[in-house]
């Protein structure tokens, strides 16, 4: 990495800034530049109460969540791809996504029973988050516990995959028994959104995401060494067991948290590391990691912006937008890259 890398990094930061502002400016309710400027210039007098509310309590938290959530998923994807040396690995490869789904499904089923229905809506939101995070962490702990017995990473990948199947089947069973409106609620959760967070949840999301990033960053040397394979990494002085534990915990924190608040957001975690590698070439993880975080954040902001459908009234599901816009982009980059060689 050299000067051009810094220029690329700078461009990325500027891009994020532009997307961030755009994400706040545009949405189903039109808000003028004047209103935006005066609001952030601490001169809110000329702005209507409802517009103030939309900006402060909806769009700003949503944009921050997209930035941190998208970044967290991308870093989670990078960690899994580099750890398993497998380009098809993604943040949900160890079953974190299906674990979260099970948690949410169980919680929503519980809602059917009458005593829960009488609880306030705030309880419902918090409950969803906690059960999703709980589900994700339980699966991760289970994998971690079982993985003590496995030396091969392929077995670990298969284990994650099998657990995913098993848990997904349990979720299907729960859905089969659930009422129609509960099923709908679950399906909507599964489509992913950055718009369900408020400032209180951000007070949890941002510090914990930063903690996850610090943990992940502490392993950049190990991740670089993993390029060479486990045994060579060991010869280079990397403790495989310790690195694995920290990488798992970091992934669980980053991905579990994001999934709890935003649902299982597809595509970003798997695609962003590829996108970064295609765009920047080889780099040590001390570069890949921040680049993935920033690119993930930028893409999440872009997808959120599109899903808000600035030119129509309805909001589109995030996951569909992500895959519809993202997959062709990656395919294009792949083709472009092969033509150069």
């Amino acid at each position, binding site marked *: 990495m050299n000067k051009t890398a810094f220029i690329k990094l700078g461009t990325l930061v500027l891009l994020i800034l532009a997307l961030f502002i755009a994400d706040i400016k545009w949405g189903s309710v039109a808000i003028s530049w004047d209103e935006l400027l005066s609001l952030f210039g601490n001169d809110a007098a000329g702005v209507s109460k409802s517009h103030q509310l939309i900006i402060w309590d909806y769009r700003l938290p949503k944009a921050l969540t997209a930035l941190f959530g998208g970044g967290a998923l991308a870093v989670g994807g990078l960690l899994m791809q580099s750890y398993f040396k497998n380009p098809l690995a993604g943040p949900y490869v160890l079953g974190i996504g299906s674990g979260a789904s099970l948690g949410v499904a169980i919680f929503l089923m519980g809602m059917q029973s009458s005593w829960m229905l009488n609880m306030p809506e705030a309880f419902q939101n918090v409950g969803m988050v906690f059960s999703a995070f709980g589900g994700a962490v339980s699966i991760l702990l289970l994998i971690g516990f079982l993985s003590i017995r496995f030396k091969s990473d392929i077995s670990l990948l298969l284990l994650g995959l099998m657990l995913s199947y098993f848990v997904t089947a349990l979720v299907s069973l729960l859905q089969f028994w659930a009422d129609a409106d509960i099923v709908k609620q679950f399906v909507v959760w599964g489509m992913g959104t950055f718009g369900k967070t408020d400032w209180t949840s951000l007070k949890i999301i941002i510090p914990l995401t930063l903690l996850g990033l610090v943990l992940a960053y502490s392993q950049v040397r190990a991740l*670089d060494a993993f390029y*060479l394979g486990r045994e060579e990494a060991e010869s280079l002085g990397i403790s495989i067991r310790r690195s694995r534990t920290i990488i798992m915990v970091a992934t669980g924190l980053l991905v579990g948290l994001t999934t709890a608040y935003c649902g299982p957001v597809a595509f970003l975690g798997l695609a962003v590391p590829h996108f970064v590698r295609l765009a920047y070439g080889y780099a040590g993880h001390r570069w890949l990691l921040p680049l993935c975080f920033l690119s993930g954040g930028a893409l999440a902001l872009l997808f959120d912006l599109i899903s808000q459908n600035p030119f129509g009234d309805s909001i589109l599901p995030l996951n569909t937008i992500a895959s519809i816009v993202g997959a062709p982009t990656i395919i294009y980059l792949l083709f472009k890259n092969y033509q150069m060689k």
Partner: protein
Amino acid sequence: MLHLNDLHISFDIKGVKRKLISGLEMELKPGENLVLLGRNGVGKSSLLKAISGKMEACLDAVLWNGKAIRGIAQQDLAKKIAWIPTTRVDIPYLKAFDYAALGRLPYLSFHGRLKELDRKMVEDAFVKLHIQELKTRDLNQLSDGEFQKVQIARALCQDTPLILLDEPSAFLDYPSKVDLFSLLNRLAKQENKMIIYSTHDLDLAWRFAQKTLLLAGDGSYNFGLSEQLILDGHFNRYFDDEFIRFNGEDGHFEFDFSKGSRSLKLTGDKKLIFWTSQAMAKAGIEVQDTSEIEVHCFSEGEWGIQDQKFKKLIDLMNFLNTLIF
């Protein structure tokens, strides 16, 4: 200094314990290079792994300057022992320089950034191996021989007194093998390193490795100066069978072809006789001085039999096939 003290390696195959190496005692000093020889599956790779500290059961049997490596932290061990495996890794977009630089990892702080000194060491490694032109090449576009040298550059970057290589010559063409073995010999002497490698290139290895460790695969072994092992007949003991024979006179392997019923006598130019007899052996024709049929080899490169003369060996062979004898 490396010292192996009562080292045992055995394999569990479905509950049946098979001893590969038993009670191995060995010592290696800086500046020495050692080759591990033995048939497939005798434990060469396992021994290399054991020395590099990857085998839990052997950690007490490997002594570094008299101290068991069990007591040496992994990070410190990485500054003493470099290990180069057989398998080649392909990492997309990675340049040879960055690959070699990974050898500096044990010395870098947590974020893994190369300092000026680290960069210089990587540069120096490429200079030492005369492969500067490879620095900016993509790793997966290197030939196997070039890749092997870049791997050695990585080991040099790791700056360890001991370098282990698992079958480094496996995928190389013949000149590259010679090049590699002489390089390892030179590195040991010039850089005062200990180098241990395994190989199946038997008749090349003893020419370049000062010491040899022969592994039988049943626990027994022989260790010493390569030439001493040959003089004592150990190479014969390990590698001879009905088809192949190690020639203790000149260090080559000889092969026995199944003998046919036909035989002939060769006279004339010595060099021509040698190569003609090689061709005869493959064709199943025995060379015997008592044979009635005589082929005379003229020093100008011609063959005479009965009243015929041939300028090419193939014409002689074709003619012999028409003869009934």
